[in-house]
């Protein structure tokens, strides 16, 4: 493989019903960093049905070029049409790097595509950087978050990775840069479309995306009762924060699963993270340690959470939060 023929940092832009997903904008932010380090360009791959008008938004978030495949075959996500589209684009443009969100779409499309391309794919990366040899260093957790591994894809291109929502930072929208939008026709092989979508159902219930929250107050085992949750809810209202929780609290049924932080829940990086009554199992730390500022309150001064906290308080979380709320309202 002639590696030098492969150029550009490409992001597969995920849209659902025409709505660009945040994870893709976060990836664009990272792609900008990587492209700058390589003195290269950021390409957004935008595929869907009647979605060309979204290209400008991608340019505002860091893309130099938007490669757009707009076709009725790409209306809803299905593995095969999307794989054919991205495979065609990769063969036309020969990306050096291709990133996808580690969502139920990216984790279905990514491996299928990597096998068709015969290249490597590194899942759920938490850190991406460029080495001195201009290669992509992809760092990810393994063994349930107990170990970190940095992966390279030396001899194959594109270097593919998926990244979970909330791990990278999106750039603030800037409408001044001029980007290029290229429309591309996909020569579909429709006889390979063998899976039919009967229906797509959104489930009821207030969906809260804690990975979008600026402030999170996270409830651990030490606060996992009605009184503790009430105190947390009250403070959350005052601070306009969202409530999240550790796995133990979610498993106990006290907080819904979509609010779980950690390896098996969500990765969050709010401006402020309160860890209340959370001891800090490694699986939990994996999901929150990138937060800007971490305040931990726990009775046990040996709790591992204090190792990642910017401010640690040893004490009774109920009392402290109650008083804090009173003073904020007072």
């Amino acid at each position, binding site marked *: 493989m002639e590696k030098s023929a492969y150029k550009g940092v490409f992001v597969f832009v995920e849209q659902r019903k025409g709505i660009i997903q945040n994870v893709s904008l976060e990836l664009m932010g990272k792609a900008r960093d990587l492209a700058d380090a390589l003195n290269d360009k950021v390409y957004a791959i935008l595929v869907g049905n009647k979605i060309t008008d979204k290209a400008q938004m991608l340019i505002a978030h860091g893309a130099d070029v938007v490669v757009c495949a707009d076709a009725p075959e790409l209306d809803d996500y299905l593995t095969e049409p999307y794989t054919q589209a991205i495979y065609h684009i990769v063969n036309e443009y020969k990306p050096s790097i291709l990133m996808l969100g580690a969502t139920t779409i990216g984790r279905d499309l990514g491996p299928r595509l990597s096998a068709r391309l015969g290249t490597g794919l590194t899942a759920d990366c938490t850190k991406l950087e460029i080495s001195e040899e201009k290669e992509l260093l992809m760092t990810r957790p393994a063994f349930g978050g107990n170990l970190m591994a940095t992966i390279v894809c030396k001899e194959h291109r594109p270097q593919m990775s998926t990244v979970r929502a909330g791990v990278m930072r999106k750039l603030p929208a800037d409408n001044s840069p001029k980007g290029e939008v290229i429309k591309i026709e996909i020569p579909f092989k429709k006889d390979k479309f063998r899976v039919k979508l009967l229906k797509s159902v959104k489930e009821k219930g207030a969906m809260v995306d804690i990975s979008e929250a600026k402030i999170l107050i996270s409830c651990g085992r030490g606060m996992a009762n009605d009184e503790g949750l009430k105190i947390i809810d009250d403070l959350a209202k005052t601070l306009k924060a969202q409530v999240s929780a550790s796995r133990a609290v979610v498993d106990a049924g006290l907080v819904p699963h979509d609010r779980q932080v950690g390896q098996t829940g969500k990765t969050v990086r709010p401006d402020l993270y309160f860890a209340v009554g959370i001891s800090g199992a490694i699986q939990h730390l994996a999901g929150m340690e990138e937060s800007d500022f971490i305040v931990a309150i726990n009775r046990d001064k040996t709790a591992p959470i204090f190792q990642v906290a910017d401010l640690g308080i040893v004490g009774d979380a109920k009392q402290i939060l109650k008083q804090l709320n009173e003073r*904020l309202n007072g």
Partner: protein
Amino acid sequence: MNIVVCIKQVPDTTEIKINPVTGTLIRDGVPSIINPDDKAGLELALSLKDSFNAHVTVITMGPPQAEDVLREAYAMGVDRAILLTDAKFAGADTLATSHALAGALRKLDFDLLVTGRQAIDGDTAQVGPQIAEHLDLPQVSYLEHLDFDGKKTFTIKRRIEDGYEMLQVDGPCVVTVLSGAYRPRYMSVSGIVEAYSKNVEIWGFAQIDVDEKDLGLNGSPTRVHKAFSRGVKSAGQLYEVDSTEAVGIIMSKLKEKFII
């Protein structure tokens, strides 16, 4: 109806601890288990055996001791077990692993291929879809429920972030199953007794249909550049003070950060 289930023997990662002095994994005494998503996949296959008299083959790739998970699958009720093991497979990343498994699967006749969504030691969720691609079969990942019409059509509930999708596909196809989808049955006592007299077929490179260059370390596009235990961020200040003083400290920090 023939079903093949791919399973993996994994260390129970919830039992793994880090040696705080050396920063290395403590794997001694950590039990090996059938990967949870794969075990749900086994249950899906066995429930189709109950309803449609399907023949269930289980296959695993791994070192010789991976035979244990095949015996466990026998005790749950599978009909045939294959251990894919060869020095040529060593050092495989997900792509090379999927090539080896696809090579074995080309030798088997099936209507449905079941894998777990992902394994708890790697969490990549890649091998199932990669096998599907090598075999040119349709795939449905994140399976939460499957209905079979008794002929050739599967109706599948696929779990996604904010709901689910209902998908339809004819066999042969590949599905990847979520651990919560099917509660695995227990091994029966007679099953456990019989499991040890049943034949586990050992297959190596010679028994499968694959290009040798796609296997093992040589067939792996990705390499581990380095592995390390999670670096501990340097801890901030720790205060052991009464609650009034604690509140004061928090308030001043929040002001400093322009949060209040």
